[in-house]
């Protein structure tokens, strides 16, 4: 597998949220607007890259039977760093993501990559893999939050599209930015992906 493939596989083919169903909690909880989704995605990516790099650097020195606690501590350290950084520089975002910043620790995507990839591969490969996965995670979060923001408020990234198009009477469905909307969007996106996959398979069969 070359580097490009290694990078891009996380975007869609092995997207951590949409295909592997990892890291669902933040993907549903903070995706009420694109700003939040993007912020969460980038924060997680930063933690992922940091921890993957460090783990793959020191992988030789970690005794295998206590590797998991060590990984968790490493990840937790990076999370704390990110948490403090956000609090200092982006207090608004930090507030709206709230609880879910510290909870990046228990995002199984990060531990999963550390265990399945970084602890077995070279530093460069691990960084690329982490970057790819992080971008994939961000893509998924932005996608979900775009759907929710658009149908929920009629706006995209804060721009009120409906009003710009001159449709005044129509109001977005507030439910989409409430908890049920998160589940629903996720379910419908997954259903769409499954449908698309089956359609392609069927096409192949007909050929």
């Amino acid at each position: 597998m070359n580097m490009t493939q290694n990078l891009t596989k996380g975007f869609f083919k092995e997207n951590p949220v949409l295909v592997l169903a990892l890291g669902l909690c933040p993907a549903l909880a903070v995706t009420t607007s694109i700003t939040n989704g993007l912020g969460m995605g980038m924060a997680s990516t930063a933690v992922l890259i940091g921890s993957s790099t460090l783990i793959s650097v020191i992988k030789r020195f970690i005794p295998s039977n206590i590797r998991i606690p060590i990984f968790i501590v490493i990840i937790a350290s990076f999370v704390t760093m990110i948490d403090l950084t956000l609090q200092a520089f982006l207090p608004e975002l930090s507030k709206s993501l709230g609880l879910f910043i510290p909870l990046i620790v228990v995002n199984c995507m990060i531990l999963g990559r550390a265990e399945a990839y970084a602890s077995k591969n070279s530093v460069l490969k691990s960084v690329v893999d982490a970057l790819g996965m992080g971008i994939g995670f961000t893509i998924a979060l932005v996608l979900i939050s775009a759907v929710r923001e658009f149908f929920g408020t009629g706006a995209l990234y804060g721009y009120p599209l409906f009003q710009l198009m001159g449709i005044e009477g129509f109001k977005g469905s507030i439910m989409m930015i409430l908890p049920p909307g998160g589940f629903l969007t996720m379910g419908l996106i997954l259903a769409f992906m499954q449908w698309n996959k089956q359609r392609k398979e069927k096409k192949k069969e007909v050929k």
Partner: protein
Amino acid sequence: MDLSQIITAFLSVGLVGAVLGAVLAYASKVFHVAVDPKVEKIMGVLPVGNCGACGFPGCPGYAEAVVAGKADITLCTPGGQEVIDAMAEIMGVSASAALPVVAYCACNGTKENAKDRFEYYGPHNCSAAVFASGGHKACDYGCLGFGECVEACTFGAMYMMDNGLPFVDDEKCVGCAACVRACPKGIMKMMPKGSSVYLACNSKAKGKEVTDACKVGCIGCKICAIPKTTPSGAIKMEGDLPVVNYEIEDTLTGAKFKCPKACFIDKSDSKKTAEEIAAEKEAFKAKEAKAAEAAKKAALEKAAAAKEKGSVS
């Protein structure tokens, strides 16, 4: 931030960690319970993300299920192919060295070829239809055409054709024999991947009964099994139905062209044009005529030789 703060931070977390570590280390000795070493080995290769994607309660649960044989080794999506391979090694599920096989449908009773004996109403699947007086097909052994085999195929290698019979895509078929187990009539069978000609009938009934029910059913005439048609001996009769032994290499062209009911089907025919098939038939006939002539000649020569011998003696 002054130095003392860093030291307190370091010390307190270190202390918490040390205490917990010590307790756990002690506990792991005190509470040690023997586990199947295979489980531990599998735990070693699993990602231990405990994500639950496999449907089991965490990685240990999954590892135990695998060792107990209750779960497939393919359920760990985060681990991907590497984990599957590693687990396969631990579990000793090596890729079988046997010849690759593919499934085929041993029936050519299309809607046109085979008659119905009654109209069937009920659930649209084969095993249900069998419970209504053995199924609506006049032939007791014939394909019912509801496609339960296709449903059983998890590799997308089968589909139902318009003529009411299943089609097997040899390239996709992995030889798992799920369709063989699914068919209530025992029509789906396995053959080596490279072979092309197979017997498309499963009827163990006598000649008249078969002709009453189906245009292309095997009447048990034994023509295919005689050495003249199949010199290699790859076809043997078992009761009223011939059985092909694929271990003996043979193109089975004799059986294909000489069967009076055309029960032998050549898979490669679908890729050829009508002319090509006709030409092949001609070639076979010519070859056979030649062989017959040669045999005749040989017989004559033999007779002549015998005569000569006789005259000499």
